[in-house]
């Protein structure tokens, strides 16, 4: 038996003696092993008593731990890996979550609720934009209408053909943009003003000096895209012209020196 094996055998015997076991054979009867075993027991019998202060400190630690655990509640979540703790909640947040769970249906998970909220916001935004556009278009159109009593027979009487627009340039020509005809929603105009179509006419393709008469009798130079109200007089100057568009799609061209008044159109000569 070499030294190493002997040491192992002695250690085994000592273990047996320290553990209160018998049957380690002749080695356990060895004087040295007995002495070492006795020494080990002496060491094991050394007992220290912590002071009262220290005991109190440990009790305080345990009390703090108990309070901490009581405050915390454990919530479980059944996941792919089995039950696991997901978070530690205070009783208040737990009650709030329970209340929310009772209030909301089960399928309305936060993710679904969030998506629905986003979609609803988008719809609202689109509605607001559409409403704003419609409102602006409505505001741009002059109100007022009274029935126009221009007879079609008169209006269809084209006093004189309008000169070629590209060939004629008048210094007095209105340079303001034709809002109604140039706006992207111009195609919708007939629909938007359908209740008034039979009483109004749209003055467009204005060239040169075209004026309308106000209620007080004064003549006002008009820009493009005006709605001619009932009873309003429209006149064109020399080298000027315009076109009236009626609700039924018929048109009337006003040549130079023309005046339309109360359903009549006549040439002012020239």
């Amino acid at each position, binding site marked *: 038996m070499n030294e190493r094996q002997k040491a192992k055998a002695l250690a085994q015997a000592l273990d047996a003696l320290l553990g209160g076991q018998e049957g380690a054979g002749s080695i356990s009867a060895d004087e040295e092993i007995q002495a070492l075993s006795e020494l080990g027991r002496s060491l094991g019998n050394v007992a220290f008593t912590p002071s009262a202060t220290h005991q109190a400190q*440990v009790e305080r630690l345990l009390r703090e731990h108990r309070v901490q655990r009581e405050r915390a509640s454990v919530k479980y979540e059944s996941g792919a890996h089995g039950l696991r703790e997901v978070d530690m909640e205070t009783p208040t947040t737990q009650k709030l979550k329970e209340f929310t769970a009772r209030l909301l249906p089960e399928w309305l998970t936060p993710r679904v609720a969030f998506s629905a909220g986003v979609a609803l916001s988008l719809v609202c935004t689109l509605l607001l934009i559409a409403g704003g556009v419609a409102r602006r278009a409505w505001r741009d159109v002059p109100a007022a209408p009274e029935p126009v009593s221009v007879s079609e027979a008169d209006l269809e009487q084209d006093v004189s053909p309008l000169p070629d627009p590209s060939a004629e340039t008048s210094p007095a020509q209105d340079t303001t943009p034709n809002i109604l005809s140039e706006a992207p929603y111009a195609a919708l105009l007939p629909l938007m003003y359908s209740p008034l179509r039979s009483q109004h006419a749209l003055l467009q393709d204005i060239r040169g000096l075209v004026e309308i008469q106000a209620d007080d009798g004064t003549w006002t130079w008009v820009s493009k895209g005006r709605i001619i109200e009932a009873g309003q007089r429209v006149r064109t100057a020399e080298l000027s012209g315009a076109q009236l568009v009626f609700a039924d799609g018929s048109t009337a061209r006003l040549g130079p020196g023309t005046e339309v008044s109360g359903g009549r159109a006549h040439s002012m000569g020239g």
Partner: protein
Amino acid sequence: MSRLRAEGEGLPRLEVSEVEALFREYHPRVYAYVRYRIPDVSEAEDLTSEILERALTYLASYDARKGAFSTWLFRIAHNAWVNHLKRRQRQNPYHVDLGAGMEDLVAHEPTPEQAVLHKEEIAQMLKCLATLPPRQQEILSLRFAGRLTNREIARVLNMNERTVSVTILRALRKLRQQLVEVDTP
């Protein structure tokens, strides 16, 4: 369900009452383990409190499937002791004064005289223990103060169980030799 689930891997979580029972049971053993190495009572108490507090903090990491509570707790104690030694690196190894710092020693002797003698013997023994190599000191402290089995010590220190047995044998031999040398002027 008497046990709660802990984070991540479904670790069984001890109930508060179980924790308190375990800590009350192991507190004297941890304290003795520390006292074996630190002669100063207040310093030993501070380190014991630190160990227990750390154990409470990391209680959720205890996995009963991986080992006994004692193994887990004394691993914390061992690490705390190592850290404590690092903090005291500049100081000399502990010096045990005979009869001093033994006021917390439990004496089972019937007479005061015998108790004093016993205390002196213990103090002498601890003084000799302090002269052993750190590894031997550690193993003897875990074995006789912490009352761990050789298998548990092997788990705490990541050693072979047989190595622990042999180390205990050699440490006790050395300690005995030291004591004999002290007794023979």
